[in-house]
């Protein structure tokens, strides 16, 4: 069995990043529930975890799945940016709110790549693992997402 640290250390070290990712991925309103779902799922699976070397990447992968669940439950198909813009925006948050609202409005792959890279500070390889695509595809999604954001926020 892998030497797993007490689960509390995962919360202490990674909860803020996971919440930030979910805030960007599902919006502030859905983030609390998705956050709890993420850590409950992680806690359920934790004793069976074989590899304790990348706990942050593991949590981020689960968070990503919970974000997808959230969007499915809401019956929201991935929508192009133009359509999302017409939806009401989230409560404006003075700090970073505008940027992350724009991130939340990106197409799913780009949104995920951008949040994993900047909210969670993951390298391309781990983003690729979390998204289930090649590092090259992850890099491309990130690039496209950033390009679109620059245009949006210019």
């Amino acid at each position, binding site marked *: 069995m892998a*030497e*797993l*640290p*007490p*689960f*509390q250390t995962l*919360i202490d070290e990674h*909860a*803020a*990043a996971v*919440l*930030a990712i979910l*805030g*960007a991925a599902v919006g502030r309103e859905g983030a*609390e529930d998705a*956050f*709890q779902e993420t*850590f*409950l799922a992680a*806690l*359920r699976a*934790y*004793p069976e975890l074989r590899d304790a070397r990348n706990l942050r990447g593991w949590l981020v992968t689960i968070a990503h799945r919970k974000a997808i669940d959230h969007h499915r439950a809401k019956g929201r198909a991935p929508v192009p940016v133009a359509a999302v813009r017409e939806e009401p925006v989230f409560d404006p948050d003075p700090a*970073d709110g505008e*940027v*992350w609202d724009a991130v939340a409005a990106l197409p799913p792959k780009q949104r995920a790549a951008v949040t994993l890279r*900047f*909210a969670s*500070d993951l390298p391309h390889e781990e983003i690729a693992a979390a998204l289930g695509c090649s590092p090259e595809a992850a890099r491309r999604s990130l690039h496209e997402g950033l390009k679109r954001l620059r245009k949006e926020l210019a």
Partner: protein
Amino acid sequence: MTPTLDKPIPKKTLEGLRERVAAEGLLDVAYTSVDSPFGTLLLAKTPRGLVRLGLPEEDADALLADLAGRISPRVLEAPAGLDEERRELDDYFAGRRRDFELPIDWQLSHGFLLRARQEIAAIPYGETRTYTDLARGAGNERAVRAAGSACSRNPIPLVVPCHRVLRSDGSLGGYAGGLEMKEKLLDMERNP
């Protein structure tokens, strides 16, 4: 480059998580820290009862890592789950309580050590026994050295009052929390 998004987690979000964890029975080891006249104590319990008490001298991180390895890695801070334990210890240090009633989980003790520690748990407040008494009570009069380690490596000091065990010549022997603490506890119990 990276936006500063790591804001503190709202209390409500973490509380909600704790409640859901407890409701789903996913909390194998709950812990909290408690102030005492000797410094900060660490309390850890399983659904069966108090399983470990860390004295101020002990390294809390190492203690929790050890519990993660020996019991379950589902170790979470959960102050509310240990209210009863905290209350009984407060009362004990204030001289209002002589016997602990909180449930104990003995799973970290086995065989002779388990029997010896259960003997320790039965030593009344304000009284003492010797390591030899303890060895005899646990069923092996010659196992005085093992009786010593039943005390020195006692997972639940204070509640399993190993400070009440002395050498046959009346000298203090040892204590995981330091001899000064042992002496003060004995004084407190003798002069309530």
